[in-house]
């Protein structure tokens, strides 16, 4: 049951008393978190910038240097835009030789169909004033190759290429951006119940590229509220499975689209911030690779960074875009208050797993908990669906109708899913009955 009397802030969030902190304190806290990510970026460049990582036990855990270099450039680009005092000058200087190394030049020349993606660090460095005419000319030659369009990509990756090209050419993308956006999650809901992790990443990345990480005002193919409703369900699902990388990316949707934090989004932010405070950085999940125990010194540091830097970057980027002008405190859980009976019923319908969000929820005060009925409904529906508990899903949908919460994409997708299941099961039994007759 929710602890209705405990009015302390979430663990590790004592610096920020929700609803009470002034904007300067909130901004200072966000900058502190961003500076931590920038510090981790310096170490990532130092330990992974030259060779990437090849010490994983599974092939997908290995990566070439171009991956952390591109992601480091993105973090520093966003940090420099929204928090010029976040200490990006030194890591930007450190990034330059890696971003324009002989290996990078070779790759850009050799692979014209992905040359803009490979040149991501160069393009972002140039956008921040660290230009290199020679590298630019090589990139232009590759971009003009006949094989330029030889690597097909999904629509949100088209947006990425368009974004990189626009930054490189120092121009806005134009109407083609809206045409492509229509084909992405900005235009169409993803499957919130049974979609893949790729679908979720497509949802989180499309607004990053379409808005130039919140710097461009764009016309979306549908109301931003619909997209944010789905982002809330992606966030709930990520918190359930303790995928903090995805949770952080889902949260970016609110500042990227210059929208007020929903109660669920503010709660999600509190969950991530409290976990970051508890661990010392935002981890990817509940556990880190046990393989690190068998390593020492340089190898141990490389392995720890290789498995952790990405989520730490996501938290840094989230804090950076949250510093956008006009954004309210992401710590403040404020919204319509639902009945406490409903909160208790929904919370009781969710099996406990020890996920960090459960601790954070317990530490909220009653006012905050009462704003989170839609979040609890999302979690309960997702958990019920994943365990195949159709009866509970139906009950939850009835509850949603009763309390005016059934207007979400997750509710309608749940109803559609149950309808399909019902038709399938009914059809099988009809066939079975006929064959027996």
């Amino acid at each position, binding site marked *: 049951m929710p602890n209705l009397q405990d009015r302390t802030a979430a663990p590790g969030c004592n610096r920020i008393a929700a609803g009470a902190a002034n904007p300067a304190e909130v901004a200072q806290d966000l900058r502190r978190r961003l500076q931590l990510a920038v510090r981790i970026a310096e170490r990532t460049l130092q330990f992974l910038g030259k060779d990437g990582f090849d010490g994983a036990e599974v092939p997908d855990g290995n990566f070439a240097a171009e991956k952390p270099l591109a992601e480091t450039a993105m973090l520093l680009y966003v940090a420099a835009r929204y928090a010029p005092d976040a200490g990006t000058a030194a890591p930007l200087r450190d990034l330059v030789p890696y971003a324009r190394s002989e290996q990078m030049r070779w790759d850009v020349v050799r692979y014209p169909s992905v040359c803009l993606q490979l040149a991501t660090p160069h393009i972002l460095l140039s956008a921040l004033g660290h230009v290199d005419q020679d590298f630019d000319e090589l990139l232009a030659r590759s971009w003009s190759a006949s094989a330029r369009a030889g690597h097909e990509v999904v629509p949100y990756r088209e947006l990425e290429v368009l974004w990189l090209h626009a930054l490189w050419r120092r121009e806005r993308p134009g109407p083609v951006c809206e045409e492509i956006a229509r084909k992405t999650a900005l235009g169409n809901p993803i499957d919130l119940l049974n979609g893949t992790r790729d679908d979720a990443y497509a949802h989180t990345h499309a607004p990053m590229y379409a808005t130039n990480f919140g710097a461009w005002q764009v016309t979306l193919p549908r109301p931003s509220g619909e997209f944010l409703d789905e982002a809330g369900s992606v966030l709930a699902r990520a918190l359930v499975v303790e995928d903090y990388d995805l949770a952080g990316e889902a949260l970016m949707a609110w500042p990227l689209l210059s929208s007020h934090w929903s109660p669920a989004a503010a709660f999600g932010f509190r969950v991530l911030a409290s976990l970051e405070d508890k661990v010392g950085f935002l981890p990817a999940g509940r556990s880190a690779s*046990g393989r690190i125990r068998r390593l020492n010194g340089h190898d141990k540091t490389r392995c*720890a960074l290789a498995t952790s830097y990405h989520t730490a970057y996501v938290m840094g980027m989230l804090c950076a875009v949250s510093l956008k002008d006009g954004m309210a405190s992401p710590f403040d859980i404020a919204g319509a208050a639902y009945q406490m009976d409903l909160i208790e019923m929904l919370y009781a319908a969710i099996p406990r797993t020890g996920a960090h969000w459960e601790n954070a929820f317990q530490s909220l005060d009653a006012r905050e908990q009462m704003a989170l009925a839609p979040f609890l409904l999302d979690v309960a529906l997702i958990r019920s669906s994943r365990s195949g508990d159709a009866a509970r899903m139906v009950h939850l949908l009835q509850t949603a109708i009763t309390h005016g919460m059934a207007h979400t994409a997750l509710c309608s997708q749940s109803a559609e899913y149950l309808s399909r299941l019902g038709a399938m099961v009914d059809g099988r039994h009809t066939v079975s009955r006929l064959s027996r007759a």
Partner: protein
Amino acid sequence: MSNAANREEIVRKFLGSKVFDFNAFGKFVAENGASIASASESEFGFVVGNRFIRYCIPPVVEVEQGINPAAIRNEVTGR
């Protein structure tokens, strides 16, 4: 009708139709095993990609016999 109203209407229609036969669904699960109706609790899904589209997708972390991430704080943050 707004999209929000549309979505609520889908839920209302489903609940009003009473097409979901709990007995038949229970029998289906009993005949086919619970695993057919449930999904893995530990994974979001799967990642498909090559080196290029894996930009911004986190590296795979092997979590078998995982450790508390706080144990690697010094390695990650340098302090």
